[in-house]
């Protein structure tokens, strides 16, 4: 198995508040890593630091064999990393002034200089994959939350990233809409896409994640193969969290 992403000792504080207290993890190609943990545990901040949406105070990131200083990476380095990663946001963040198909094309045409016709073909192909082909010419405001998030996933996969970061992709959705998004993610996982998923969906983590990380108070409390973490957690805190969350599912 080849390592695609490895980070070490990521630290981040907002003023007095230490959000990440030295986090490290290794992610292999094809891994689907679920990051679980209570609100305020630093899951989202971690994900944002890995893609430099947030600047870590210290730490190192090795992605696809290239080392990055999590605190001091240059603009050029950051852009190189972003060319090979994708990010799916909690509130979708589709470009409001672009149609669904234009949203997917943007990263190809503007950032990667792909020819327009070629980009459009690719965009339509990915929209079809997430079941949004019929909505290609609609603006985000004309789509439901679940539809917007599926377009956002199409936008993420269109650029063939080595890894996709998902930041609570279903948390802003009505319960009846989460299913359509999770099933798209499940398909991606089955195709071998490497994914780092911050989520509260215990069932999704259990069924789809190859590995599960449990975070609390800015540290990783426990991580391992999903089955182990769920069925034989080593830490009491992990057990309590899983029990409480799965209780909520019923």
């Amino acid at each position: 198995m080849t390592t695609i992403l490895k980070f070490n000792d990521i630290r981040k504080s907002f003023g007095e508040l230490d959000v990440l207290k030295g986090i490290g993890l290794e992610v292999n190609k094809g891994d689907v890593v679920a990051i679980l943990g209570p609100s305020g545990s630093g899951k989202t901040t971690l994900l944002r630091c890995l893609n430099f949406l947030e600047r870590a105070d210290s730490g190192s990131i090795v992605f696809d064999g290239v080392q990055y200083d999590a605190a001091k990476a240059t603009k050029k380095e950051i852009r190189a990393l972003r060319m090979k990663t994708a990010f799916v946001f909690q509130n979708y963040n589709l470009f409001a002034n672009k149609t669904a198909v234009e949203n997917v094309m943007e990263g190809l045409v503007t950032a990667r200089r792909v020819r327009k016709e070629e980009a459009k073909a690719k965009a339509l192909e990915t929209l079809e994959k997430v079941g949004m082909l019929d909505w290609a010419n609609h603006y985000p405001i004309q789509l439901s939350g679940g539809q917007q998030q599926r377009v956002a996933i199409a936008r993420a996969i269109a650029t063939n990233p080595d890894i996709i970061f998902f930041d609570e992709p279903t948390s802003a959705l009505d319960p009846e809409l989460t299913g359509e998004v999770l099933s798209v993610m499940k398909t991606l996982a089955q195709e071998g896409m490497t994914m780092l998923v911050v989520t509260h969906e215990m069932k999704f983590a259990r069924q789809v994640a190859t590995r599960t990380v449990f975070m609390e108070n800015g540290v990783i409390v426990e991580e391992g193969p999903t089955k182990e973490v769920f069925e034989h957690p080593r830490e009491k805190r992990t057990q309590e969290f899983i029990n409480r969350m799965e209780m909520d599912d019923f």
Partner: protein
Amino acid sequence: MDNSVVSLMLDSFWKILKPGLQMTIPLTLLSFAFALVIATVTALVQEAKIPVLRQLARFYIWVIRGTPLLVQLFVVFYGLPSLGILIEPFPAAVLVFSINEGAYSAETIRAAIESVPRGQLEAGECVGMSWLQTMWRIILPQALRTAFPTLFNSLISMVKDTSLAANITVTEMFMQTQRIVARTYEPLVLYIEVGIIYLLMCTILTKVQAWGEKKLNARGYQRSAA
């Protein structure tokens, strides 16, 4: 109404409208176009937080907004010649109106940029676009929709403010009216007439604004972040 009043208005209508078409409208459109460019650059420089340029932008806005437009016209047209810089009336007017409006519109555009949800910029950068590409293709088009009514306010203001150019010998509508008044001694009728012509021009602009807003709304404009 007195027959002579009607015939005076009819006689002078074309004489007043002509410099309106030849001077007032070109002066307004040219100045406003340049102002938009200046304003966009000034707003972007501040948003990009480029050290020295950002302070320069603030300084420019501070000076221009803090001094009367008439004073700025006089400094450029009557003042600069003592430094050996002579500018013809029309270009001088375009220069001053552009720089003046640029400062105000820079703030309008900056506010509009800041009203676009931060996630739009993050999403753009996450698909691999540079800051400038994201600004140009994603943020500014959305900001333009927000700024549109305010910018149109400024444009409508400018149509009327161009009458100040009469003070630096630009023969625009107002100066032309003054000349006719000097000949006919009919200030009430003629000044009301020129007022009506300004009103007509601004009415057309109001219609254009409504049309433009409708066009922009068709392009996925969101009233507020969902």
